[in-house]
């Protein structure tokens, strides 16, 4: 396992098709006191405003909530991007929302979150790409990698839809390719260090 010299401050996760299952599998393995904030973009329909949060909370011991505009990012919380808005992170560690045009046919877009998170957290950021059937997040992973952050992709063999992790891996910006179970173990170990 990669030894970490740096204390990470946040984790960003991008998921699309198949993501509900993958996210549930990941989040249910985290202990109630998991410290690092997890910030998630899951591509979703705008017709169901809160269902995703409810489903994930039922699986997860850490508090899960939909991001509110200007909310301060706290430890020990899973934040989900609201439907139909891009999610960005400000220098003062608060969230911003925007309804700019779709990026990679998506709003929220994983690239938008990852790129703004990389600017703020630099090498103190972990970026994770899970299952999906498009290439959103690939550019974002590259940016996180270039800023010195740690990048992980779900192994395409395991992913229900391999296109998205494959696209990320193809940028050569991915440091680790792991199964969901391995990602979970890795994250839990990191916070114990």
């Amino acid at each position, binding site marked *: 396992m990669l030894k970490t010299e740096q204390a990470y401050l946040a984790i960003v996760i991008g998921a699309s098709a198949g993501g509900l299952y993958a996210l549930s599998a990941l989040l249910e393995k985290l202990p109630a006191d998991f410290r690092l904030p997890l910030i998630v973009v899951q591509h979703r329909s705008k017709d169901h405003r809160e269902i995703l949060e409810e489903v994930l909370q039922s699986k997860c011991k850490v508090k899960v909530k939909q991001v*509110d505009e*200007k909310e301060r990012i706290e430890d020990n919380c899973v934040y989900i991007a609201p439907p139909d*808005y891009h999610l960005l*992170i*400000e220098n003062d560690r608060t969230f*911003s929302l*925007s309804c*700019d*045009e779709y990026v990679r046919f998506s709003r929220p877009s994983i690239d938008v979150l990852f790129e703004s998170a990389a*600017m703020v957290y630099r090498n103190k950021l972990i970026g994770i790409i899970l299952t999906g059937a498009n290439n959103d997040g690939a550019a974002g992973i590259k940016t996180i990698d270039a800023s010195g952050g740690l990048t992980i992709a779900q192994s395409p063999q395991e992913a229900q839809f391999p296109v998205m992790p494959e696209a990320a891996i193809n940028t050569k910006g991915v440091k680790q390719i792991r199964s969901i179970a391995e990602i979970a173990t890795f994250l839990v170990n990191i916070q114990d260090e």
Partner: protein
Amino acid sequence: MNFEDKEFRGLLESIRYTYGYDFTDYAEASVRRRINHFMNFKKITALNELEGMILKDEKLFESFIQELSVTVTEMFRDPAFYKSLRENAIKRLATYPFIKVWIAGCATGEEVYSIAILLKEEGLLNRSVIYATDINQKSLQVAREAVYPVENMQSYTINYQKAGGTNSFSEYYKSKYNSVMFDKSLKQNIVFSPHNLAVDKSFNEFQLIICRNVLIYFNQQLQNKVIQLFHESLCPFGLLGLGNKESLLFSEKRMNFDEVDRKEKIFIKNS
């Protein structure tokens, strides 16, 4: 690409000084993203290079402003909001002999015609005036023309129906080639005009103010100032409609409003 804080602040300051556009109190992450986008597109690699260019070249500055102001909008966006307006606002509005509505940050007008249709169906349009304002002159021009791409009509029709529309949506426009033009009767009581929420003052008293998906682009301080402006511009018991993820949470005036519909972000001025 990345740029340092000082340079970024400097750029916003010189834009304000030279052109009078004030982006200094906008939420930074989004402005930075748009600037990045513009620089990539124009193949500009450094922030000071961009600054030099837009301060010299007014044409370039204009396209820069277009890039910075996000015009994305649609008709009956968030249909549940419009439904709630029908259910919660119309009865109150109907008690006034003359109704003034302000739609702030109206972009290219889709929201304005949605409100006009709603007022028409509720029998209030002929005694209403809608003031529709935006910072972006180009968007306002599109709004005045009321011509939109025909391919959007399908999704707008669905929105309209979900919003509780009582007619056939296609009655409101005429198709021509690949565009549709909305009916003149909707336009009669609309005044389009430039207004900058960051610097301009109140200009009338309204029974209803709608400002959706604009405040999210501002920082807390500017949000607070704009809510103050809305408070000042509402009549007693006037209504305020915000975007789905916007709230009065950071406003000093939050105690001066009650919630009419918490989910759809409709408020009423109580004092």
